């Protein structure tokens, strides 16, 4: 005895009518209605004449209905079920598009948030779907647009890497900064961030005193981007104290080569020497400004 209303008996709507209603809902961009109709169609007539077309339209409907996860799941399902379908490139394209949209979230449009410094997760997923589309179906009608979006994504990822590299320079982790720069040069070629990446590599290797690596980075940079204003890290960032005291106390030191010490005893000696040298100002401000 069912208490809450009998089992709702769905009338068997003929396949053709269901499909037409779904398509017209799409045209009127009532995407929620379209999604429901297409889901019903797929459930009632799984192998009907329209089943494949319905699955494709479903991805598009989810995408416009701001359900990115459902859209990419539907796309995956379509790719799995119909590997050799003629417009499977459309599925890959839609999958890439949903991830792309997801990345440029609400914030970027309305709030002053620099997206290139945020989580690149969605951008990576979008990049991968577009690249599968390009190498599997180079002549697909969606390839040019996908190509354009990939360039945007690559730049975004490269800028992100350079941001991180700059942080590590500030932190003094020079090998880490150099490797982040190298990641851009090796994997994200032809992006506007490449010269900055090379500059960071040059600065990091200079700080590490690895002159030949620094020179080769500088050479590649200046040969490809002759008018790049390349400065060492120290010139670029006068010491904090100088800015805090408007240039009165801290002079711009030349890049002091790191004290070379192979064994611990030498390290101790170097530390002692460095201790006396701490400037008087540095002491009274408890090293706050160093």
């Amino acid at each position, binding site marked *: 005895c069912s208490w809450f209303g009998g089992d709702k008996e769905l009338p068997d709507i003929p396949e053709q009518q269901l499909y037409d209603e779904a398509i017209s809902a799409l045209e009127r961009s009532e995407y929620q209605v379209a999604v429901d109709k297409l889901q019903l169609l797929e459930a009632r007539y799984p192998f009907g004449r329209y089943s494949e077309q319905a699955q494709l339209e479903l991805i598009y409907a989810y995408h416009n209905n701001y359900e990115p996860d459902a859209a990419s799941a539907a796309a995956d399902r379509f790719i799995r079920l119909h590997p050799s379908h003629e417009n499977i490139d459309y599925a890959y394209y839609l999958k890439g598009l949903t991830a792309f949209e997801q990345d440029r979230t609400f914030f970027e449009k309305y709030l002053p948030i620099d997206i290139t410094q945020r989580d690149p997760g969605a951008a990576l997923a979008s990049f991968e779907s577009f690249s599968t589309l390009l190498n599997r179906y180079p002549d697909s009608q969606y390839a040019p647009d996908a190509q354009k979006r990939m360039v945007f994504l690559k730049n975004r990822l490269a800028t992100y890497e350079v941001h991180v590299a700059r942080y590590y320079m500030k932190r*003094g982790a020079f090998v880490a900064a150099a490797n982040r720069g190298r990641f851009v040069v090796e994997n994200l070629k032809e992006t506007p961030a490449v010269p900055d990446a090379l500059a960071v590599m040059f600065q990091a290797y200079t700080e590490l005193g690895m002159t030949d690596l620094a020179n080769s980075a500088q050479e590649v940079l200046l040969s490809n981007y002759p008018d790049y204003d390349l400065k060492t890290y120290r010139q670029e960032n006068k010491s904090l104290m100088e800015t805090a005291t408007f240039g009165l106390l801290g002079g711009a030191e030349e890049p002091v080569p790191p004290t070379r010490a192979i064994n611990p005893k030498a390290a101790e000696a170097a530390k002692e020497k460095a201790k006396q040298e701490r400037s008087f100002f540095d002491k009274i401000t408890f090293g706050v400004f160093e």
Partner: protein
Amino acid sequence: CSDFPGVYKIDIPQGNIISQEAIDQLQPGMTPSQVRYLMGTPLVVDTFNGQRWDYIYTFKKGWDARVQGNLSLFFKDGLLSHYSGDYKPAGLQEAQ
């Protein structure tokens, strides 16, 4: 009041730890994978010159000056030939 606590700066270790006992086992003619087995994977790789591996170790303890030591290994047609840098492997010649 020089012992009043200054700003705490975390230590910054960077690069591969190089042990004398490992580099003394380096022999000319070794293959890259043998070198990698002994010394570990180099953290600094020269994108523009595959024939040289740089093992660099640098450590900045708090405010003390940064301590550093490095060892560059050069390969000739794929095999270890010579080295340069602060560490002196016993079995190899230094590059001129």
